[in-house]
């Protein structure tokens, strides 16, 4: 349903997306996980035709989005990060307008609008202007506008940002339902727990590149090999690197004068030995954080930084 090949997008000197490639199938929820500024939204913008790629190719349902954009967009549904709604119109009017934009009309449109209003829990307030809605209600309607025409490929750009827990659970369930109905869902987020709970496959994105891409179980296994140990204090990077290089099954992910991130197997048992080695190399440890293997620790291991940094 979706194939992205060596996608690259530059804005002058800045390269926002640098050679991303992925493939997603019907019924699958594919997650793009990465911090803000990693290039997730730019990738989505290229897929839905808002931005023209600098190089690379994107095919949606077999149509090249650059050469055959209109056909590609016919099967596309977009739920943008912004609340792309007409606040002075009612929920029903918004849904009917966006449904109409994808060619729906008449009884089918009315019926589908009612279904979406019901699914998003907005049926009883469907005639009210959107400006009277709470943030969570607007988020749900924003989602509804993206799925009202039952797209084959649904692009979701951080749809739960700023949403209350109740609305978030409801939204995630709506996303699952789209996939169950056969849609291919591309879901960008920087919430690790959301990605773990929702996605069948994940790509971890940083600085416009995919640093890991695999089914969720494989990524969990990658993360499960080693713990991540994050130290803060005063370090002499060359000396500490030298001292730790003698340790078995330990990798220095990142180190500077004030912090160090290590990937260590069986870290809790080996902490005294690691501390001694650092101390011997002239380092002083003030704070220690040990993470058990999760996607977040995998992200840290792969990129050397926290997901929310």
């Amino acid at each position, binding site marked *: 349903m979706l194939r992205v090949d060596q996608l690259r997008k530059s804005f002058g000197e800045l390269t926002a997306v640098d050679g991303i490639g992925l493939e997603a199938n019907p019924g699958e929820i594919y997650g793009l996980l990465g911090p803000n500024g990693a290039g997730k939204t730019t990738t989505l913008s290229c897929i839905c035709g808002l931005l023209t790629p600098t190089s690379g190719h994107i095919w949606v349902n077999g149509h090249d989005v650059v050469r055959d954009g209109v056909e590609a967009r016919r099967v596309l549904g977009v739920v943008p990060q912004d609340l792309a709604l007409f606040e002075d119109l009612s929920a029903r009017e918004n849904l009917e307008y966006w449904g109409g934009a994808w060619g729906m009309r008449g009884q089918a449109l009315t019926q589908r609008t009612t279904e979406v209003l019901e699914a998003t829990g907005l049926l009883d307030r469907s005639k009210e*202007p959107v400006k009277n809605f709470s943030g969570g209600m607007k988020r749900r309607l924003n989602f509804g506008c993206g799925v009202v025409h039952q797209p084959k490929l649904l692009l979701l750009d951080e749809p739960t940002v700023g949403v209350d827990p109740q609305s978030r659970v409801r939204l995630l369930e709506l996303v699952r339902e789209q996939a169950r109905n056969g849609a291919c869902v591309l879901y960008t987020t920087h919430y690790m727990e959301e990605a773990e709970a929702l996605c069948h496959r994940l790509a971890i994105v940083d600085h416009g590149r995919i640093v890991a891409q695999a089914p969720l179980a494989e990524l969990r296994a990658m993360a499960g090999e080693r713990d991540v140990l994050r130290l803060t204090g005063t370090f002499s990077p060359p000396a500490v690197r030298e001292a730790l290089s003698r340790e078995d099954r330990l990798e220095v992910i990142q180190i500077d004068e004030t912090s160090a991130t290590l990937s260590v197997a069986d870290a809790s048992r080996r902490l005294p030995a690691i501390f001694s080695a650092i101390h011997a190399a002239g380092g002083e440890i003030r704070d220690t954080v040990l993470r058990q293997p999760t996607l977040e620790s995998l992200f840290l291991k792969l990129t050397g930084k926290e997901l929310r940094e």
Partner: protein
Amino acid sequence: MRFLALSARKDLLRILRDPIALLTWIALPIIMNGMMALIFREGDPMPQGKLLFVDQDQTLVSGLISSAFSREPLSRMILVERMDEPAARKRIDAGDASAMLIVPKGFSDAFFQRKQSTLTLVKNPSARIVPEMIQQAVDIVLEGAFYLQRVLGPDFDRFTSGPPSDLAVAAMSVRTNQLMRQFSYYIDPPLIDLETKVIQQQKKRAPFPVLFFPGMLMLALFGLAVSRSEDIWRERAQGTLRRALATPQNMASYFGGKVLALGAVTALIGALGLVLARYALSAEIHNPAAALLWAPCAGMSFYVLNIIIQLAASDPRSGVMLSMLILFICGMIGGSFFPFEMMPAWLAAIGRFAPNGWLVLRFKEMLQGPIDPVQLFYAFGTLVVLNGIAFYLICVRLRKWSVA
């Protein structure tokens, strides 16, 4: 086409859901028009004033002087009030009259006896035109009296010493008849040939509210277009423009819907304006169909112009400022705040080329008289071509601008 209609409906609903903004731009020109009409009120063009007439003589002669003011056209300009001197002085001191004329006791006797007598005329210094007219009228009456004295002076003497005899009356009649024969040589037919040239009657200027109407209507449409053009920033911030770009539809349909929605609203405003002008201001509307069509065309043109301004601006604030600045400049020189008829010629010449100036002038032509179909075609054609080019450029720019 269907998406165009859908978008137009959507934007029409959005405009109608903000009635305050809509009414503001309709009411503002109406209020301004009313105020301008009050300021430059134009009723009867003749000045009107009061003459306080103090007749201390109470004779036929003093009566003749006062009756000079009761003839046309003076009677339409000057209202004569007879009263005694103290009351008249009180009124003129209070500034409650244009002038006071005192005919002293014995004026009639002095006239017949060819003796000197003095009429007193007190003018109100705060008024200029009417007192001058009164003075000139009195001068003419006195001059006439002087010539009458010169011609019929000896005959007057016969009246001063009591009722004249039948013989005296007959002699006077004969003399008067002889005088008339002598004068008839000069006056019937007149010795001086008068050539009469009929200068083409100047076109009567329309009353002020009617004069202001076309410019004010265009100002309302311009203002509404400014107010609606700001919405493009909201759409960009909210992301609806980007969402529209992600649909299989094109930007021309999306933006075209906006233009059409504004066209529908301005058509309604134009129709209301024309009905008001026709029935409330008694304005003549010679080409109602063309004028009805011109209003939405002008409204859409103003909208397209303002969208160009918004797209050229760096942020919403500067966009609105720029639009308002252009609105006011164009309003001032383009015949909206002041009709071209009231502007200095050089300024009006420049203003005719301002966007609203051109639209106002064509609109006036449609209202005021028969218009050549070729001229109509030229006017509408110019609008279609210019707006078509602007529309295309906007659609191209809007795509990049939405995702910038």
